[in-house]
């Protein structure tokens, strides 16, 4: 028995032990820890411990992204408290209002690298599996403990392997595959597991598409997710990385608690109906449902390729309902401005907002009225997620979001992509 999963290997490395197995409890020293607007609340818990200095401030990242620019005085005070804390503690990686969403920004900045462990006070920290890192969400008390000690105990999760084969048909994106997986095995299908992707489909994903699957595995209950990093990933990180790294790959004969194969070439576009990400049906079954708002953005689908996809649908057309576009980062914003994608979106009638989370979790910038339905490119559609309880949210890929904005009802983008 010398074969190991990704999770077993990466956690053994971060704990400084020679080997580990699923179920083992380890003291893990993550390479990077991060939080966002919740950093002020974490600071208060941290101070309760009696600790005064963050143990490894150079390995701490904070991004202001969840409610930016501050929509209320209380939010502004929260941000001010965080800025003062960042200065006082000498926190190594701080990103101001407008820089973008934590997961996107830390990816662009190459703050975390393949084979590393990153723990975030955010449930979608599974995101970092796109570059072959171990990303996991932790609670606020756990983040305070990490600030204080730099170490957190962890139990090595069992692994589930999902092998994706074949080239997806046109109109079937990584988002559709993620929703398909969640719909098929349920919201707890990956509970406390390391979901490790494999197969030739991954090579068909653009760099912008890759994070979608690990990001959405948070809705699958996964502890972390993983994609084997290749040269495209290494190249993307090369210009900005400040450390050396060693990518980690699972052994071919590693033991998986569950091993599934999906024929990605056979999948069709899907949509998650209200009020759960696992409430997934084929798109064709939802066509014609009226929606009053369309939202394109978030850490799931707010990257350049997503804006470009929407622009392809919207080119030369006008939208019938409101379309809110929030680029996932300032870099996405700048690139879309330079290429003309933004002009196309604005000409079609879209409202463009400051890079950040936007209305994803109902803080501001696009909260629906009661009984208004939103079609969204986000990852989560629980009741009340966008700030209003009786405002249903549909989750779909960016093409579908754009097409539905043109017609005011859930629509098939193929009609607009001749």
């Amino acid at each position: 028995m010398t074969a190991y999963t990704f999770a077993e290997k990466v956690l053994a490395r971060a704990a400084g032990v020679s080997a580990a197995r699923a179920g083992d409890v380890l003291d893990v020293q993550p390479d990077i820890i991060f939080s966002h607007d919740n950093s002020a609340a974490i600071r208060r818990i941290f101070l309760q411990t009696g600790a005064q200095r963050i143990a490894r401030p150079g390995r701490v990242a904070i991004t202001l992204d969840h409610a930016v620019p501050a929509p209320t005085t209380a939010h502004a005070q929260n941000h001010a408290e965080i800025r003062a804390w960042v200065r006082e503690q000498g926190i190594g990686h701080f990103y101001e209002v407008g820089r973008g969403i934590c997961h996107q920004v830390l990816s662009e900045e190459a703050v975390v690298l393949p084979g590393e462990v990153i723990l975030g006070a955010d449930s979608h920290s599974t995101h970092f599996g796109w570059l072959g890192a171990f990303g996991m969400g932790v609670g606020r008390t756990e983040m305070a403990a990490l600030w204080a000690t730099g170490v957190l105990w962890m139990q090595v999760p069992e692994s589930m392997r999902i092998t994706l084969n074949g080239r997806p048909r046109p109109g079937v994106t990584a988002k559709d595959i993620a929703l398909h997986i969640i719909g098929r095995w349920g919201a707890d299908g990956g509970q406390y597991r390391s979901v490790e992707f494999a197969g030739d489909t991954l090579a068909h994903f653009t760099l912008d598409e890759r994070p979608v699957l690990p990001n959405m595995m948070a809705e699958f209950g996964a502890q972390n997710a993983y994609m084997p990093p290749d040269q495209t990933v290494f190249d993307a990180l090369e210009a900005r990385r400040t450390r050396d790294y060693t990518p980690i790959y699972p052994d071919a004969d590693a033991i998986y608690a569950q091993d599934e194969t999906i024929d990605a070439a056979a999948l069709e576009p899907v949509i998650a109906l209200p009020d759960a990400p696992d409430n997934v049906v084929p798109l064709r079954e939802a066509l014609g449902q009226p929606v009053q708002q369309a939202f394109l953005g978030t850490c799931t689908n707010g990257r350049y390729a997503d804006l470009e996809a929407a622009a392809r649908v919207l080119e030369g057309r006008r939208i019938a309902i409101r379309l809110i576009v929030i680029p996932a980062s300032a870099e996405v914003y700048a690139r879309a401005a330079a290429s003309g994608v933004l002009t196309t979106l604005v000409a079609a009638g879209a409202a463009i907002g400051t890079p950040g989370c936007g209305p994803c979790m109902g803080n501001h910038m696009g909260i629906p009225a009661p009984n208004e339905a939103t079609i969204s490119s986000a990852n989560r559609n629980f009741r009340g997620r966008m700030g209003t309880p009786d405002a249903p949210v549909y989750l779909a890929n960016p093409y579908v979001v754009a097409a539905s904005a043109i017609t005011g009802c859930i629509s098939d983008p193929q009609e607009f992509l001749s």
Partner: protein
Amino acid sequence: MSQHCVWVYGDHVNTDVIFPGKYTYTLKSPEEIASKALEDLDPAFTREARPGDVIVAGRNWGCGSSREQAVTALTGRGVPAIIAASFNGLYFRNCINQGLHPIVCPALVEHVRTGDEIELDTARGYIRAAGRVFPIPPLPPSVRAILDAGGLMPMLQVRFGGGR
């Protein structure tokens, strides 16, 4: 070593029945939370459980949401340990961080009934029940230290001098 009365449950008991989701934003005090423990699983427990009683369960105890109250509802009732064939991972983390010992013992659930007495010795690492002895797998020292301190926050307070 101590004697405990047990409440026995099956596989896949989820956090919604350990502490119903409908109370998560309305009930805040530990006493209120504890008063609803297992309400949707076993009202007899909710009415009659006494401090020192122990839960014995099957596989995947505590699956579902990451709700911390699903642990505090039981610690609030004075439950000193949960013994299960296996735990949901998040629940296991929450137990340790809140100072409640999650004891993995796959065989015990087959040998006891609700109302039975068991003898528990976490220091020596065994359970005595139904005339048999079941070993308790040792916890790594770092995790043991969190439990001994009463949870993650008290442990940090001991180390860094906070609290009180």
